[in-house]
């Protein structure tokens, strides 16, 4: 190239977050271009809040070209559901909700006991929604830094008619050339923020001034110490015999089904304070907060083979 063509730029070089944003929007648009019926999984959690924000940016000023879908376990915090509804209203998006309760009521999900975590059972309600709405692509806010099964997953991750992931037969995915066409009966899960870390998510929330449910910020709460984890005391997760609840300042790093997400001790009450705390935190996100990933070394891998997100 001659120097004439190397146009000088007065723009500052792109930051890491700029590049991640450019990549995520490119992925969102590519799925919309190639798939007939996409939907965006939106729970009201921080990762899906970032994802929804990116989706709005990808298509502005046009409205979102797909609906939002939430699989409600029936065990969600009220404030998170309120936030979910608020964001759907603000973006003008259609919000579809699939209920795990429905599958329990009609007997396709049988619980071991009434208070069993319903997290794993989301797969059934999710597949119901995929079939009834004939979705061929679902956007999700999963990140590769969360867990080792996620670390291996493609940005465009194909699932068979049962929703199963086959880690041994993933399609090659080179450059940013995404071939998104599923075979009949298959659908594709699309993860635009695959390459973001927990720190990137928080720094982006700070940069873009995004709103989040209040659970993400430090607040006083009754908890029980179980090993290294803090279990929240709620109607669904009462103390066991002999356990003594304590009141302390905590925040949630991930928010999901009440029965399986644990808060961490923290006094960080602003996004900036959370960024600083995240920089200093040594324990991995799921390690500190997920009661369901502690059961075995490969919990997530097994759940994903069952059709879990």
């Amino acid at each position, binding site marked *: *190239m001659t120097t004439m*063509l190397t*146009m000088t*730029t*007065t*723009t500052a*070089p*792109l*930051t*890491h*977050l*700029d590049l991640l944003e*450019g*990549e995520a*929007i*490119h992925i969102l648009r*590519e799925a919309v*271009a190639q798939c007939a019926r996409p939907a965006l999984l939106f729970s009201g959690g921080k990762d899906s809040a970032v994802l929804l924000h990116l989706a*709005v*940016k*990808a*298509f*502005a*000023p*046009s409205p979102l070209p797909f609906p939002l879908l939430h699989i409600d376990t029936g065990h969600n915090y009220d404030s998170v559901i309120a936030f979910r509804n608020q964001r759907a209203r603000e973006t003008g998006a259609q919000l579809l909700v699939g209920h795990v309760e429905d599958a329990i009521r009609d007997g396709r999900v049988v619980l071991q006991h009434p208070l069993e975590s319903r997290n794993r059972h989301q797969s059934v309600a999710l597949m119901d929604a995929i079939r009834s709405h004939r979705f061929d692509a679902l956007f999700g806010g999963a990140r590769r*830094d969360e867990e*080792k099964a996620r*670390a*291996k997953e493609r940005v465009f991750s194909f699932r068979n008619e049962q929703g199963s992931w086959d*880690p*041994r037969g*993933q*399609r*090659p*995915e*080179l*450059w*940013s*050339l995404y*071939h998104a*066409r*599923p*075979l009949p009966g298959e659908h594709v899960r699309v993860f635009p923020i*695959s*390459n973001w*870390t*927990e*720190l990137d998510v928080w720094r982006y929330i700070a940069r873009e001034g995004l709103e989040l449910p209040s659970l993400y910020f430090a607040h006083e709460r009754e908890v029980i110490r179980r090993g290294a984890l803090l279990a929240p005391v709620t109607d669904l997760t009462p103390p066991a015999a002999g356990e003594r609840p304590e009141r302390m300042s905590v925040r949630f790093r991930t928010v999901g089904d009440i029965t399986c997400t644990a808060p961490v001790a923290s006094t960080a009450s602003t996004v900036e304070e959370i960024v*600083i705390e995240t*920089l*200093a*935190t*040594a*324990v*991995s*996100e799921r*390690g*500190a907060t997920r009661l369901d990933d502690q059961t075995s*070394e*490969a919990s997530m891998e097994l759940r994903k083979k069952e059709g879990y997100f």
Partner: protein
Amino acid sequence: MSLATTPGTADIHCPVYHHDLPALRFLACGSVDDGKSTLLGRLLHDAGSVPPDALEAARRASHERGLGDLDFSLLTDGLLSEREQGITIDVAYRYFSSGHRRFILADAPGHARYTRNMATAASTSDLAILLVDARKGILPQTKRHAALVHLLGVRHLVVAVNKLDAVAWSEEIFDQVKADFLAFAKTLGIESADFIPLSALEGDMVVHRGAHLPWYEGPTLLETLERAALEDARAQGAFRFPVQLVRRHGGERRYLGRVASGTVGLGDEVVLLPSGGKAKVLALELGGAPIPRAVAGQSIALRLDEEVDLPRGGLLAHPTAAPTATRAFEATLCWFGEAPLDRRRRYRLRHGPAETHAQVEDLAPIAGLDGPRDTPDAALETNGIALARLSCGEELIADPYDTHREGGAFLLVDEATQAPVAAGMIRRTA
């Protein structure tokens, strides 16, 4: 358990600014059993990037499996299905920071059968660590990985000669591996590489210098990763904007896409391809907000000063440095399909947002690699690499891969399975 969600505690004293800089994307590859998992585990551990809970999990697993106090390879341990076979099947992406730079590591499989996954890792990397076992020297799979890394345009190659502890820390053996590699690399056209002697098991020259290699004066592996130049070639190239989607809103037409290379500003004249017409940039928007200029890597919406026909798959380019439209071209082809290439068949070709169908006309071997001869019945088998001449159903607006990665890269897809069966890098158009 995930590794390295966040940097170690020491990081809090470092300025936050290094998190603003683009990360170095690198891959680690090499023949199976050359000690890659142990090396990466050692690198992450000694760089302070293994969270205590992940470290504890690896210690527990080491004990359970009778592997001593801490087997470093378990820090990068994979899936159940991989553990059953003791090999890595697919790429695992890991994110860490040394306190000076952020890294995105693609941990690629060494087994020949999973070469497609190694190519997946290499396609987005700035740097490759190629592992060699000092006892075994250069193996066929070492050569294949070196070739792939080179053909996929990874700019920086670091040859990590591992297991020096098993050869009495011998400088002669290190020098021999280096000489052997350079002799082979020359035939492929690889111009430069860094060589580092190290022991993943003992830790020498990974993050710390250690005490066993006084004869080596170069940088450690981590220092090499921290110092590698991260030139953004894309930002310096001529302007290219592949159109992903066209959206109408309030009577205005917007072209959505990511700037593939170069920059564009308000009022700039651009050429529309394939039509060849010209127009001026009327508006640039990011997330609905106007911006005066867009650069490579940004996903934007763009409006032109006149209504033109420019569908998905079209391209906007700098008017005096536009790519050519062609139906035939020469490319390096890496075949991943389980079934060999069938030259009688048409494959779907995906090139950026553009799609057409293509057929392979001729095949020739690549210098330095075993490959098919140019005979009418020459086959390209799984994991084979060859020079190919292709012809397409419709014109492709293409650049050579050397100068524009995005404009020169394509996939061939078998429409019966919808699986990508080959990755291609365009060498020459016409």
